[in-house]
């Protein structure tokens, strides 16, 4: 699989380490009243969809940036990649 790195162009997925569902970027608020339950969900439960999946890849053997890659889990086709910092910035 080739990942279209927004800064470096097409890179072999072998250069990356896979982390998991992109929702892992959104850590729950530890001060919230339901924090314990929220953290259990955050750490252990996943949507695990068959189809389009947004997921975190770390460019460990490259520029060490985190990417949010959009990929189809039924075909392995990669539909896009963004810098995780941009995704987070845009949401905040």
């Amino acid at each position, binding site marked *: *699989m080739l990942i279209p790195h927004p800064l470096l162009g097409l890179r072999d*997925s*072998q250069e990356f380490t*896979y*982390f*998991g*569902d992109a929702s892992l970027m959104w850590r729950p608020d530890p001060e919230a009243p339901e924090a314990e*339950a929220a953290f*259990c*969900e955050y*750490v*252990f*439960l*996943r*949507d*695990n*969809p*068959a*189809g389009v*999946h947004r*997921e975190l890849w770390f460019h460990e053997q490259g520029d060490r940036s985190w990417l949010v890659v959009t*990929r189809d*889990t*039924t*075909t*392995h086709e990669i539909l896009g990649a963004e810098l995780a910092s941009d995704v987070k910035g845009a949401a905040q």
Partner: protein
Amino acid sequence: MKFSGFKVVKEALTGHKGWRPLWRNPDPKPAYDIVIVGGGGHGLATAFYLAKTFGALNVAVLEKGWIGSGNAGRNTTIIRSNYLLPGNQPFYEFSMKLWETLEQDTNFNSMVSQRGIINLIHTDGQRDAYRRRGNAMRLSGADARLLSRDELKKMVPFLNCDNARFPIKGGLMQPRAGTARHDGVVWGYARGADMRGVDIIQNCEVTGFRIEDGRVLGVETSKGFIGAKKVGVSVAGSSGRVMSMAGMRLPIESHALQAFVSEGLKPTIPGVITFGAGHFYVSQSDKGGLVFGGDIDGYNSYAQRGNLPVVEDVLEGGMALMPMIGRARLLRSWGGLVDMSMDGSPIIDKTDIDGLYFNGAWCYGGFKATPAAGYTFAHLLATDRPHETVTAFRFDRFNRGYVIDEKGVGAQPNLH
């Protein structure tokens, strides 16, 4: 139709005209007491033990393709009970004991072959860890033997014991472990269940659950609605997809796992051997092919196939361990869809929806569990209580902090 040596001889002499199909292909009835979703090894074993041991009469297994077309027909057939943790090991030893009487129980040749497994040791630290594991196995009633380097060299002379980076210093052996014929297991359970009245319905995909007031009433399928008092889901790699139709999120990611087989060779490998310095394991099938595999591909996948980097990694492991494998030609490789859980251990439990039960999260190791998963899931479905060997396999272990993490790597499925 009962199988016996006499029957085989008789058929051989009369042109094999007396063999009959091993199970019926019935249309679904409007409703059943218990519906099992998924006709893999686990689903069929569950139906078998429900009918045989727990006296359930009105049971159906719904399979979206043909039975055994999932992981049951794709795995590398290794059976063993060499786990470490108290939540796991008694269950796998229970399964090992059921394997030992399987062929008598089902009257079917599933080619259970206790040819032994050897986990190789490459460092002193690894020897300590395996000694501890061997002791844990023996405490659960299983068998384990620590092998010295010299013993090992006599048993498996082709190993590269003097590899400069990964010298082999010994091994942990479980003599009672081995392999079983994957299709034979599926067919044996299917025939046994069918003979006891279970309807096995193939090409019947479950597309939804009918749930009212928190209680399941049946399943929507490609063959219409089928009512059920209880529904047991046992769909391995499809667990996430199927349980999401009941509105549940699971502590599971689906991943691709690949396997490989070489051309047929004369007998060379006596049992199962696992490399301890990389991920590679190998055995030899009765047809002579070397059957081997390694790591999962490592990213969410429902594709039932893997990619080339893992092919390279597995073959490198093979070359490091037993250079002679380089002379064999690779015949085929394929992939399956494994349900990797957050702690690498399985779940057999009720859900919060009345009448809906779940068996899954078997990761890359559920073939060996087939008899015991079937037995204990049947126990849960019939009695509403977990069997004593699966009390640790509950959904709530994650919230309660009682994860069963054999590898100690945390909630990162691609590292288990």
